[in-house]
């Protein structure tokens, strides 16, 4: 199915991306929780969501979505549209509720998102030693995701396998969002060596009281405000664990949390 057909089926407005309307897509993810899209989204997916903030576009960029469709007449603000233009991600808006949009698309036999990604594009791993430090500010939701998007670009330019780039971007994004949501500030260091990508993030914040509980899917201490932003469903740390080859978490309550993550460059196809 093409985006053009989707536009006509959902009677959608094209807010950006007219020139991509002939592009085909194969599957749809319907969610208001960005961690859910990060966990299950595959490249080329169309994201249906009622969440019109910039995080929906960051997420689309990280999972390499074909387009974002806002339901129930929602539209992103100017900042969101600018980000979509910058990242070249088509954004559409339909007046239908999510349920009906799913019903109409499903009836035209679009597949749901499969739980495992199996698109492995071939590319040469041509990485050299590289390191970069990002400062992340707690509570700054409008800038949230920018370090991860930049990390993704850097890894791509280094010629890292796209499957690995995607895993690293998801890990970085979930970790970055944790700082934005819970901590005062943090520092994320991305290092690329010939064998692996290493992400080390240290934040100054409340720490995690019960790490074992926090690693369980569904456990969250998020406020309602955070939940309404599409995060805080208790999928962040499990998402990191799922995509990392090594994940060490150390924390001191009242001081902060340190994430040490390794993704090996020869570990494609792990997830």
């Amino acid at each position: 199915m093409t985006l053009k057909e989707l536009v006509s089926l959902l009677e959608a407005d094209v807010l950006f991306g007219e020139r991509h309307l002939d592009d085909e897509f194969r599957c749809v993810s319907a969610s208001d929780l960005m961690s859910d899209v990060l966990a299950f989204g595959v490249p080329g997916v169309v994201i249906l969501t009622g969440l019109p903030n910039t995080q929906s576009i960051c997420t689309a960029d990280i999972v390499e979505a074909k387009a974002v469709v806002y339901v129930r007449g929602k539209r992103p603000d100017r900042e969101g549209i600018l980000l979509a233009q910058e990242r070249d991600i088509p954004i559409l808006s339909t007046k239908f509720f999510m349920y009906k949009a799913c019903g109409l698309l499903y009836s035209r036999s679009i597949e749901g998102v499969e739980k495992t990604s199996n698109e492995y594009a071939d590319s040469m791993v041509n990485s050299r030693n590289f390191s970069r430090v990002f400062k992340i500010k707690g509570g700054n939701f409008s800038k949230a995701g920018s370090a991860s998007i930049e990390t993704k670009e850097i890894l791509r330019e280094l010629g890292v396998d796209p499957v690995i780039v995607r895993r690293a971007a998801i890990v970085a994004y979930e970790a970055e969002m944790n700082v934005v949501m819970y901590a005062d500030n943090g520092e994320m260091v991305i290092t690329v060596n010939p064998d692996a990508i290493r992400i080390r993030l240290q934040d100054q914040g409340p720490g995690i009281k019960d790490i074992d509980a926090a690693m369980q899917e569904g456990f969250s201490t998020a406020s309602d405000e955070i939940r309404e932003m599409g995060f805080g469903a208790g999928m962040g740390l499990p998402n990191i664990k799922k995509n990392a080859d090594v994940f060490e978490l150390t924390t001191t309550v009242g001081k902060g949390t340190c994430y040490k993550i390794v993704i090996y460059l020869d570990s494609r196809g792990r997830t």
Partner: protein
Amino acid sequence: MTLAEIVERLGLCVLTSKKIRDTDVTGGYTCDLLSDVIANSKVGNLWITVQIHENVLAVAKLKDLAGIVLVNGRRPDESVTRKADEENVAILGTDESAFEISGRLYRLINKM
């Protein structure tokens, strides 16, 4: 169409222990934002979500929803299902995605 019939036709797994009532399902509401569900869902809607937080029960009660379908294999804590039984809220589960189960429910209800 009744909830019991939908549970059977869609192959949903019943996570609460009370018998599924013959409530009439008026349609689906697919959403993970609680405030949106409070604002826009209709009486008798079957709520499709990944949210397993205890707060979903209050929303389902408040809006007189027919039940809650948890997608992607998500399962609530035992404390949540226990409370759901006390409050008479049906919680169902599926390994399918929100998109698939919404699509199937839509086709079933609209006889497509």
